């Protein structure tokens, strides 16, 4: 069998998703989506459109009711919880709206967490890499601060550095600037752009703001559980 060069880092085929709360509610209808390596895309849609569900499915935090998912060429909808956890740790970096740093740890320690979760031994090089990442995102000066002793913008940048720690193929950012002012928001997007260009990381931003989506190269709009629009710049 000829080895086909992988083109897509994420591939969704015929995804249906039902929630069962007494009655079955379908939230995603036959979604087909392919995202290229190194692309910078956004998924937009009003709340209740199903975009969060889609993001959870892409992020392997949730499973589709029907359909196939391939991440970095591996089919994930049949994986065990343990395999999924390992895949997330190695392949996907998450950035959330509410920052979600561990307040018990300093900025640097938070950045190192994904590496420690991978159970590999912490070396001097790893630590230097984490410091380099903090430098890259411009918050080296607060590396020893506990999460609560940083501004919202600093926390979100730390979360981005943490998402980068294990050199993931994909960064999945869920409303990453929802809690930030305009100035910080622009800084975060510039940073994501830099990362996309510097590390060729695939970046997917989930947002309900059109203005933010327009900063990305591809806009995928979800409405009522279906892809309503797929705009490539």
């Amino acid at each position: 069998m000829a080895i086909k060069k992988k083109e897509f880092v994420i591939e969704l085929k015929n995804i249906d998703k039902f929630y069962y709360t007494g009655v079955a509610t379908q939230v995603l209808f036959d979604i087909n989506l392919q995202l290229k390596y190194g692309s910078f895309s956004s998924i937009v849609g009003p709340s209740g459109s199903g975009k969060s569900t889609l993001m959870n499915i892409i992020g392997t935090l949730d499973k589709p009711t029907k359909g196939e998912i391939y991440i970095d060429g591996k089919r994930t909808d049949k994986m065990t919880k343990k395999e999924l956890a390992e895949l997330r740790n190695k392949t996907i970096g998450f950035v959330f709206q509410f920052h979600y740093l561990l307040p018990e740890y300093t900025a640097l320690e938070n950045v190192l967490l994904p590496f420690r979760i991978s159970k590999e031994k912490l070396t001097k090089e790893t630590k230097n890499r984490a410091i380099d990442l903090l430098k890259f995102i411009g918050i080296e000066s607060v590396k020893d601060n506990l999460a609560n002793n940083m501004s919202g913008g600093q926390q979100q940048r730390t979360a981005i550095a943490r998402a980068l720690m294990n050199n993931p193929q994909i960064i999945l950012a869920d409303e990453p600037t929802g809690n930030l002012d305009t100035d910080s928001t622009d800084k975060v997007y510039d940073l994501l752009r830099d990362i996309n260009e510097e590390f060729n990381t695939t970046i997917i931003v989930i947002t309900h703001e059109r203005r933010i989506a327009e900063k990305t190269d591809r806009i995928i709009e979800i409405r009522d559980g279906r892809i309503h629009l797929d705009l490539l710049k």
Partner: protein
Amino acid sequence: MPLPLSIALRFFKRSKAQTVLIVIGISIGISVQIFVGILLQSLQSSLINNFIGNSSQITIESDTENPYIEGYEAIIDDLEEFDELTAISAAADRPATIQDGLKSINVLLRGLEIDDADEIYNIAPRIYEGEEPSGDLEAIVGKELSDELELEINDGLTIFGIIKIGEESIAVNRSFKIVGFYDFESESINSAWIITTIASVQEMFNMNRTVTSIEMKVEKDLLFEADEVADDIEKKLDLEADNLKISNWIDENEQLLNGLQSQGLSSLFIQAFVLISVVIGISSVLAISVVQKQQQLGILKAMGISNRSASLIFLFQGLLLGIFGAIGGISLGVFFLWGFTQASASDFIVIDYNPIFILASAAIIIGASVLAAVSPAIKSSRLNPIEVIRAG
């Protein structure tokens, strides 16, 4: 350091006040367990020492009308083969009377091999004035009796007895020299026993070389198996054939034993309930902690921490609470016991800081703490990151 342990420690550090409070709570619980456990154990062994430790635990006597045991030296030789026995002592006991003016007082004249008897009755340290009887017709008298008779050292005391020869009874008497006064801390003994040498009683009552009983003491560890040791002796020495009977303290002190047993049982109950409340305390604190920390757990799971590691965080927390609680509780418990001995005037209870009991308690409490963490650990393992992340 493994990540779950590091997270467990950081979670504790983050909520210091909560952690300190629960550790204090566990420590107090364990200190009660240690205090009650050790105090009652010590009380038991003090009771045993006081009431049984210094008396004959196994006794051989005649099984017929004739109280005299002939050839007792041979029996003692045989008994010396039993490793379970720590002391063997022959006694020639006869009832006797003393005249105090017109009043006559019944006493028990006990002829003992003083050196052998010391190992059973611990006589020497109980003589508060004078010395042990060593020569013929020397005797020591108990505190109450000597007070009643207003005796002093070197006083003479005439003791009357009766010898039966066939149908005839012959009255005999001897004048004993009082060489010491003892206190067995028992009024009934102090006012009844007059202790002298075995030869004095044999001579006075014309017993030749016979005695009336052979008294024995068993190894400390075998104290509660004295009945089995006695049975064994009875069989091996075929005492029945010699018209002898053997008795032991267990069969004769059923009530005391029942008391000790129910005391031990109530101590166990107290300890078990303390343990249960400690476990419930730990379990509920950790259950709350899982809820408090669910954001952190959610993000850790999104980052790929395994469910196993997520549950290990709380098992480690249980383990740590158990270890700190055990250390605090044992220190506190030992301190309470020390305080108790300082405060109590009586030296009746000698506190035995039984290290095996303390270590076993520590092991049980640590094990129970880990068990208490199982349900929170399962909750943590099952936590779904989506719910937490979307909830904000």
